């Protein structure tokens, strides 16, 4: 397998990143980078980390010429997962970073501790911390509950001061969305599985409206909606499919309209990506654009209600007219 970190590693180019992955020869992983400048999103890092953990440190290498900006790979903890010795020397405690390095979460208690420990690292205000805690809480829980991943949830995050943005990546090498939804929803393709997972009220544990006592099928829809409201990118990669919610234009006035149907959101998609056995979720949130969290939840809740009501109406028996 080969993962290439380019000099344009943002979510706008996420599909391009995915399409360049070489996931053949799954017993060995090589990580290469652009030779002059490397920019990575936490989502890129957690995918590399998840695959490195899966194949083992002894079978993972960072090869080729790594530019100075590759120091970030070391700071985020990627070198530690490979047999390649880091070429970078720096003070590990230098205060420039507002980042959460690659972390592995196996249990619900790990998750609670991670969320508590993570927020001070990002130096966020109380209001902004709420959004980040919410997103990570829901995404990590999805992995622990639905992915059946032996290696847990791999998480990393970065705060970008200049753009006041938090980027988050969460990855697992579990069963993927297609298998997770197969019992009750029977998606035909990986892209159909991703879109089902983004639809309000769809959970892998039942087809009943209202879900089970444990699951309602709201988590990913809420997160996609939070991201859309903050006018940024959200991406999921699982199996052969990749879906990227595109940025809602900043010059468009008013709150972005939330859609229950992911097809109605402006997005890129492919069902021909290199096959990845697992799920990767990537999130960017622009904190300037985040309204009061209560208001945000209220708006999302309204769309969720309407979607559930509409799906229920679609099941009603219709009168027989002659």
């Amino acid at each position: 397998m080969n993962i290439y970190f380019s000099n344009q590693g943002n979510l706008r180019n996420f599909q391009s990143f995915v399409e360049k992955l070489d996931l053949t020869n799954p017993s060995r992983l090589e990580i290469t980078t652009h030779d002059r400048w490397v920019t990575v999103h936490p989502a890129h890092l957690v995918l590399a980390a998840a695959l490195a953990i899966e194949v083992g440190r002894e079978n993972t290498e960072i090869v080729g010429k790594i530019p100075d900006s590759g120091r970030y790979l070391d700071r985020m903890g990627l070198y530690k997962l490979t047999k390649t010795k880091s070429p970078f020397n720096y003070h590990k405690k230098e205060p420039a970073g507002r980042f959460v390095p690659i972390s592995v979460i196996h249990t619900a208690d790990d998750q609670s501790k991670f969320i508590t420990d993570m927020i001070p690292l990002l130096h966020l205000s109380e209001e902004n911390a709420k959004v980040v805690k919410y997103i990570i809480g829901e995404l990590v829980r999805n992995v622990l509950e639905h992915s059946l991943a032996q290696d847990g949830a791999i998480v990393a995050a970065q705060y970008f001061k200049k753009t006041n943005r938090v980027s988050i990546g969460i990855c697992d090498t579990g069963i993927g969305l297609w298998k997770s939804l197969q019992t009750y929803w029977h998606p035909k393709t990986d892209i159909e599985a991703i879109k089902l997972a983004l639809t309000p009220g769809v959970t892998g544990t039942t087809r009943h409206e209202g879900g089970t006592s444990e699951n309602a099928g709201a988590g990913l829809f809420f997160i996609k909606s939070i991201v859309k409201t903050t006018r940024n990118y959200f991406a999921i990669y699982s199996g052969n499919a990749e879906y990227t919610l595109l940025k809602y234009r900043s010059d468009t006035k008013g709150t972005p309209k939330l859609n229950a149907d992911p097809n109605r959101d402006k997005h890129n998609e492919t069902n021909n990506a290199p096959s990845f056995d697992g799920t990767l979720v990537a999130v960017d949130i622009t904190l300037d654009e985040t309204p009061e969290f209560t208001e945000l939840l209220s708006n999302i809740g309204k769309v969720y209600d309407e979607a559930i009501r509409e799906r229920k109406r679609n099941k009603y028996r219709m009168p027989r007219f002659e």
Partner: protein
Amino acid sequence: MKKVIKMRELIGDFAENKDKAKKIRIEQIMPALSREEEVSLDFNGVDGATQSFIHALISQPIREFGNLAFDNLVYKNANDDIREIISIVYRYMQESLDRA
């Protein structure tokens, strides 16, 4: 009889651990509602909650006890975010129960 559950002591300041929600539901909320007791969930000191947590906490009581749950479950000191999430869960659960 009134049962008071101090959430902060059980879940910390951010309510996201669904295992803990399930434990509170099974060990405290369901038995108390079975005895037709009022259950006061006190969120004092809890800053936020995920929808998944609140769903795991109260959807089964609503589904199984219906009006008894609506009458007897009381949420104390819930901030606006937590109130909003509880309200969302109430609405979609009632939709699913045909009570809307």
